[in-house]
């Protein structure tokens, strides 16, 4: 489910590296499933400098507002206008058409500290266990 070549944060953002210092950023499947139907995206304008771990935007579902954190520091090159116009794309295709922004990374070492897909899958499995433990009778 989680693309092998992507990198992941504990806040459920992903990076898809396109070249050495550029890549797309989006929300992981877990995040979209927790939020439910996404109806609004507030993304940083192209040119904005973002900092790893700091808030760079917001995503709103019918029920909830949630921050989007920058998975790496750098400059916003492009935002996904299609997803802004149709936020449900983030639910439908979180790792593909529902990408959020393209970044030019300023600190490449930051990317090494992110989780690979195996590690991230484990991380999410741990969260799901806790969740079902809570929800059970």
């Amino acid at each position, binding site marked *: 489910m989680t693309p092998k070549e992507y990198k992941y944060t504990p806040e459920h953002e992903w990076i898809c590296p396109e070249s050495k210092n550029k890549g797309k950023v989006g929300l992981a499947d877990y995040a979209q499933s927790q939020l*439910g139907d996404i109806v609004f995206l507030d993304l940083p304008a192209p040119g904005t400098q973002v900092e790893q771990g700091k808030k760079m935007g917001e995503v709103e579902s019918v029920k909830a*507002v949630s921050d989007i954190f920058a998975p790496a520091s750098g400059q916003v090159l492009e935002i996904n206008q299609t997803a802004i116009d149709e936020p449900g794309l983030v639910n439908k295709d979180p790792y593909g058409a529902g990408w959020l922004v393209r970044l030019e990374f300023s600190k490449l070492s930051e990317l090494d500290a992110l989780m690979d897909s195996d590690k991230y899958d484990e991380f999410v499995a741990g969260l799901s266990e806790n969740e079902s433990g809570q929800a*059970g009778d």
Partner: protein
Amino acid sequence: MMELLKKTPLNKVHHELRARMTDFADWQLPVWYTSILEEHKAVRSGAGMFDVSHTGRVWITGKKSGAFLDRLLTRRAGRLEIGSSQLCLLCLEDGGILDDLCAYRVGTDRYLIVWNAGDIEQKLGWLQRWAGSDSDIVIQDKTGDTVMLAVQGPAVCQLQNLKGVSHLPRFGHTQTRIEDVEVLAARIGYTGEDGFEIITDAANALQLWESFMKQGVKPCGLGARDSLRLEAGMLLYGQDMDRSTNPFEAGLGWLVEMDNGNFIGKSALLEIKRQGVKRKHSGFQMTGQGIARSGYKIVKRGQEVGKVTSGGYAPTLDVNIGFGYVPIELATIGTDIEIMIRNRPVAAQVVNRQFYKRGA
């Protein structure tokens, strides 16, 4: 913590359907099963059902039950015909709203009140206080022994289960059987669509639920319930009104019958009416980009003038809408206001509170 949450007789079914659960007024309830938008749409275009067993159901019986309710409620219950029901308010002496509820007359001296899930102990205490030790007034909270389903949508009368009650007028109710299950069915709802609220013994919950499932009725959670009622211009107690709001500023003056004897709160409400209200619960539509949420500030020319009490995305209309209290001079339809969304003022306009109208 979780052990303290109350569960409806259908709790297990919700888990089996893999519903996302939430805590609401001390109850564990489904917020959505598949998607709030899908569930919202099902109710607007076909039929959906909600487990609303958390909603309080209190039977008031005895020779003085009608007079008792006339004293407590803002509309005269004793005037209701058997088989009918009406929305009304429970007000405090100062005119503040303790709850909004639906009073059913089920017999000569038999009434049922269906009220919100919150503050149950305080509300029951309020009833007991005014009933005193009078043996002609019997108050029985049967919320835990019964279950209540709201089956809502334009297609409800075509359902096999509900054909037998399709003759009921709006707010009418009757004792009947659905698949051999004895129920009380009322033509009422909180979604802006046609629909029924059906009460039965807790033991019948699963059978009733499954019979509707078999007929293709989509299970819907609290998320869709909230977006549906908001679109339909319906207020939610605890958000849009509470003890600190009076019926007139809440735009619920139509639920107050001043010719209704001497009900609690009447003299305060007469005075409020005489003086006129200073603020008004109003609907607004976002004209700028953003979603208003409960608690956000409403501003006009940089000054805070009120707070958003309910807000969100309106799936049927595909716009962002909300309610809030604004000074009376800003409550006119067409007035431009702004909503503070994360420290940014975003443009909005006061509009008719009933955003969605059935058949429009």
